[in-house]
């Protein structure tokens, strides 16, 4: 089941990892994405740390690590085809993270709560 953050990320638990992308609402707000800078695989990150840069035709934005842990994989295809973030944001994952404290998405919003957030 997908969960959501207040930073408009979607989170999906897979084994001992969490897969992270941004929501359609976020991609629409950003506008056409033209550049994505991904973190190094293996990087240790803190919750809230800005680890992805997204540049749209309008402005630069960041994606933060939803939890503390280790970046285990990044979606390198986005570097070459950043428009995927707009075309299919639910498929355009940015990175996988192995949480330091184990996988738990209990503290994040479900779809109903997220939809309420974005009105």
């Amino acid at each position: 089941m997908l969960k959501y953050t207040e930073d408009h990320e979607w989170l999906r638990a897979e084994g001992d990892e969490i897969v992270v992308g941004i929501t359609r609402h976020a991609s629409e707000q950003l506008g056409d994405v033209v550049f994505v800078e991904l973190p190094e695989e293996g990087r240790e990150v803190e919750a809230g740390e800005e680890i992805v840069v997204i540049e749209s035709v309008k402005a630069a934005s960041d994606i933060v690590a939803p939890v503390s842990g280790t970046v285990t994989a990044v979606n390198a295809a986005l570097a070459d085809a950043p428009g995927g973030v707009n075309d299919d944001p639910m498929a355009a994952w940015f990175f996988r993270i192995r949480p330091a404290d184990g996988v738990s998405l209990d503290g994040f919003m479900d779809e109903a709560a997220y939809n309420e957030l974005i009105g």
Partner: protein
Amino acid sequence: MEDLRRTPLHDLHASLGAKMVPFAGWDMPVQYPMGVLNEHLHTRAAAGLFDVSHMGQVILRGENAARALETLVPADIEGLSPGRQRYGLFTNEQGGILDDLMIASKTGAGGDHLFLVVNAACADQDIEHLRKLEALGISVEPVTDRALLALQGPGAETALAALVPGGAGMRFMDVADLDWEGTTLWVSRSGYTGEDGFEISVPAARAEDLARALLAQDGVAPIGLGARDSLRLEAGLPLYGHDMSADVTPAQAGLGWSIQKVRRTGGAREGGFPGADRILPELGAATRTRRGLRPTGRAPIREGVALFDAAEGGNEIGTVTSGGFGPSLGGPMAMAIIPAEIPDGATVHAELRGRRIPVTVVPTPFVKPTYKR
């Protein structure tokens, strides 16, 4: 929050699903559902219709209006033939640029006059500035009852000619009054995209009808201010308040070409405009000039990003004045005012998020214009 002004096309923008933003005190469409990237590409491939009604339209009338305007603008306006348009600058006593503008020489029903189009953000200040010409017997008439549309792109001529056949016979920088169903349009063959196209001044009451008639033509789509900015940047066209300002001279802004020979040192009407003593000697001799930049990789470098002459340490040589992603270019591009001694092809370094990115200094435009000369 201040009340935003609305153009005569405001309802049309809403019905087309535009995303509106405040711009220079106006509520303007930044994009339509097509999105900035596709709007940009559509304009270069077919035709885009832009609402630029926020820009200031002003008429100057009177004996010797051209000579009078030359006291504020360092362009050859006396030499501008009726039916032609020219780019110019308002300068200040320090040699800086107060605004840039288009100047058309027109004859016709209202008698000989000059028709000016100035930037929205500067319009009030420009009109105050122009009122200095009243002492020379010139009347300054802000045009407040007309909208301004821009129709740009390779399909612009066909689309306009379907409604107004006379548009097709115009060439780049021509102006003409053309009849459309009993309404007089003030048309110029110019724009701000690097494409062939037209700007069309239309009475406010007929603006939406005209816009809808143009949008009904094959290939014409509404385009917002977002794509207007990336189009003009690819075409190497500077934007007032960003690539030039009251602190930047014409030579520094790379706009010395807008000062014709007759107004330069040794010319028949040399000087006689604000800041001439600073501006004229600097032509061809500026120590800093506006240049094009191509960053390595895909990351855009935007306005305010600092530029250095070395990958580490070194000296700051300027900041980006405009920058973004060029959809037709397929990569990032920027402009900056940097030391003139740095040659085209040289590498400088942009500091982005704490890292320095190599950037190549290049001539502008980034994308070759297709004006119909």
